[in-house]
């Protein structure tokens, strides 16, 4: 006998499961609360790792439910370039969170304390993560460092005389030749315009009218009261013609001045061709690594791409911070999310609480190495909505070592309260121990043997523009340059090696400009003159000979065409100026005659009036 199967239950609701359902819900909520510290730890590690590009680890998170506090202990942020080292490690971070705003999912931290910040601490395990290329993301640091490799530095590998071939200088590569062609075209086009302008100035009608009037007045007798009236009328007409002649004369002069100004400009442009020729010669020699070996390029090679990369990485942090700021579209609405996390749209809220606001946090820490610097300061107004808070993010840190031999100060103001984001960072780190610092590579690695240094900077951004300087001074200091034996045979390399060995003080100023995404770094250094001397000593004779050849070649290619420009300009402008000169001459001549006639007319008119009675004198004068 088979057991009877239970009838399948129907109906939409499992009434017997309602109570367990509520219990399950309550258990879920309780578990969430119970494991919230773990969830926060996980969230910090995940978001931090994504932002940093290398592992971010949190020791533990403790939530103080009664006090409304959150403590994060032993936060480690891996140095992406050195996965076994932390960029910095924080002993503890304690935040006092306002409870009421939490009901609206607003995290308002009234005060915080970030203690025990240490830089360059070793890690127990690697913090590297597999790198995934993200479409549209900027190249990684390594790629940037590659791009930052010195462009102007190029040591000649062999004999200069054998390497340099002037016939390889092509006319199409010369900026001076291009300028000659441009000027030729410009003068030719302008000359047509000059001719038209000269023709457009009409003086014949005015001259003819003046001539006719002069002839008529000369043939007229002015006697008696009738003569006085006639003289007065003719005088009026003569003065009108005189005004017309002046107007025509002014127009002639104006046109003449305009053409002369353009001719002067063209002459100046022709003059500038010589400077371009010089640049062409320098550029041609540089292609062969001769003569104009860039001292800036050499300085860049000595400092090394890693250090330039760090400046760029520092600037990139501004962009990363900006990416967390709320964005608006053209109509002022919150911008649509481009990420897979969506975007929170804010609405009018009865309290002025942003989603996140760290009002103030104290910061303290120590630097690494012997005789460390103990520093302290504050971080204010870190928020998800700077416009609502109305104050910029301000980081202010300073400190010094025992005895004051070393000191550090950083002041950063990140202002996102206005439409255009602005950042300003000022920093100074003095008394740095430079021994063993790896620099760049000039035919072999360069490093600092020993010394102390100061690095300071002042960098400002406004929107996408960036400007500022980063200065480094090392004094006293000495450099170490390792060079292979075969390179030691090269005169120039040996001279540079000796120069590097003789450096006791180094001042480097890096000027930052351009766009935040692709900053331009211009380097000036006290090493420039040292390198120049070294190059001149070794290469002067050979490079002078090469320069003479290059000059001869460039002159040969450019001067023929350039020589034609002067006559072309003279010839083309002369026609128009000559026409204007003739017109000015005829105007001047007839103006003189008319002036004389007007003077005579005034005399004749006055005498007629005297003869005919004093009553008319008043009228004539009038």
């Amino acid at each position, binding site marked *: 006998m088979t057991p009877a199967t239970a009838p399948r239950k129907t*109906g939409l609701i499992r009434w017997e499961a309602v109570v367990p359902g509520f219990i399950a819900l309550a258990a879920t909520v309780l578990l969430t609360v119970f494991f919230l510290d773990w969830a926060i730890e996980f969230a910090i590690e995940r978001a931090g790792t994504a932002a940093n590009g290398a592992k971010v680890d949190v020791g533990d998170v403790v939530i103080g439910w009664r006090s409304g506090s959150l403590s994060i202990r032993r936060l480690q942020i891996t140095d992406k370039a050195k996965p076994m080292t932390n960029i910095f490690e924080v002993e503890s971070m304690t935040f006092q969170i306002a409870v009421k705003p939490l009901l609206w999912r607003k995290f308002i931290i009234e005060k915080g304390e970030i203690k025990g910040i240490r830089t360059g601490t070793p890690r127990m395990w690697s913090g590297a993560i597999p790198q995934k290329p993200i479409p549209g993301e900027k190249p990684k640091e390594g790629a940037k460092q590659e791009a930052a490799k010195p462009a102007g530095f190029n040591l000649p590998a062999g004999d200069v005389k054998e390497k340099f071939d002037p016939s390889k200088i092509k006319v199409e590569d010369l900026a001076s030749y291009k300028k000659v062609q441009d000027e030729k075209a410009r003068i030719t086009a302008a000359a047509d315009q000059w001719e038209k302008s000269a023709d457009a100035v009409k003086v014949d009608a005015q001259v003819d009218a003046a001539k006719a009037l002069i002839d008529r007045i000369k043939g007229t007798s002015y006697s008696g009261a009738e003569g006085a009236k006639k003289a007065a009328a003719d005088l009026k007409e003569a003065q009108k013609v005189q005004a017309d002649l002046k107007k025509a004369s002014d127009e002639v002069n104006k046109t003449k001045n305009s053409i002369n100004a353009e001719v002067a400009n063209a002459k100046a442009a022709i003059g500038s061709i010589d400077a371009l020729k010089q640049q062409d010669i320098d550029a041609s020699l540089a292609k062969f690594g001769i003569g104009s070996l860039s001292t800036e390029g050499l300085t860049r090679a000595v400092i090394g791409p890693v250090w330039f990369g760090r400046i760029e990485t520092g600037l990139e942090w501004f962009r990363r911070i900006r990416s967390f700021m709320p964005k608006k579209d053209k109509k002022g609405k919150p911008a649509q*999310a481009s990420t897979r996390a969506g975007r929170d749209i*804010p609405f009018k809220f009865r309290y002025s609480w942003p989603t996140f606001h760290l009002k103030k946090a104290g910061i303290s820490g120590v630097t690494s190495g012997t005789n460390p610097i103990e520093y302290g300061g504050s971080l204010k107004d870190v928020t998800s909505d700077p416009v609502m808070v109305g104050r910029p993010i301000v980081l202010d840190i300073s400190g010094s070592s025992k005895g004051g031999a070393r000191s550090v100060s950083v002041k950063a103001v990140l202002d996102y309260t206005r439409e255009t984001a602005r950042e300003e960072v000022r920093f100074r780190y003095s008394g740095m121990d430079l021994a063993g610092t790896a620099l760049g590579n000039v035919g072999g690695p360069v490093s600092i043997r020993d010394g102390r240094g100061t690095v300071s900077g002042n960098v400002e951004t406004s929107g996408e523009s960036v400007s500022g300087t980063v200065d480094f001074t090392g004094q006293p200091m000495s450099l170490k340059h390792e060079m292979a034996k075969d390179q030691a045979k090269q005169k120039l390399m040996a001279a540079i090696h000796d120069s590097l060995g003789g450096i006791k003080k180094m001042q480097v100023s890096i000027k930052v400009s351009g766009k935040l995404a692709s900053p331009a770094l211009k380097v000036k250094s006290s090493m420039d003159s040292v390198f120049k001397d070294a190059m001149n000593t070794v290469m002067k004779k050979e490079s002078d000979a090469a320069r003479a050849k290059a000059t001869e070649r460039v002159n040969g290619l450019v001067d023929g065409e350039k020589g034609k420009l002067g006559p072309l300009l003279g010839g083309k402008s002369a026609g128009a100026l000559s026409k204007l000169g003739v017109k000015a001459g005829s105007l001047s001549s007839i103006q003189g005659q008319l002036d004389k006639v007007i003077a005579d007319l005034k005399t004749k008119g006055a005498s007629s009036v005297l003869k005919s009675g004093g009553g008319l004198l008043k009228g004539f004068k009038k």
Partner: protein
Amino acid sequence: MIALKFLMKFISILNKDASPRQIAGGMTLGFIAGITPVISLHNLVVLFLVIVLRVNITSAILALGVFSLVSPLFDPLSSAIGYFLLTGIPALTPFWTALYNMPVIAWSRFNNTLTLGSLVLAIILAWPVYMVLGWAVVSYREKVMARIQKWRIVTIINSSSLVGMYRRFKP
């Protein structure tokens, strides 16, 4: 082993253990939870419904897993819908503002474009998904199941020692 056990259970349910409506209902609720961000306040409601409504829980869990995997494909559309609802309809602004000002409600993240958009999309698609899945289960049982049971590979699998061992230790 857990995955195999789970799959066997689902096949068993699909074949005879549960009604098509229960399977479709469970999968629809799993679809709602899966296509929206899983850690959301509204999914507590979905969890409650899965327990209280007479739906198949195994199907719901399976659908949650499957739709969580494919949900990134829907994210751009969901986010666009959410953005439109939150910013594109002025008549709704007072409603959103009122919700925004209510305590606790903000934890639902209703003002997140992806959360709102995906929830609305899931609710719109819930009925068609339920109907299609119900029809699919019925069709499977009527047309496909018997044929599959005759497949040589199924016969081999059913007689394999692994399946035999599983059946022996099945609680």
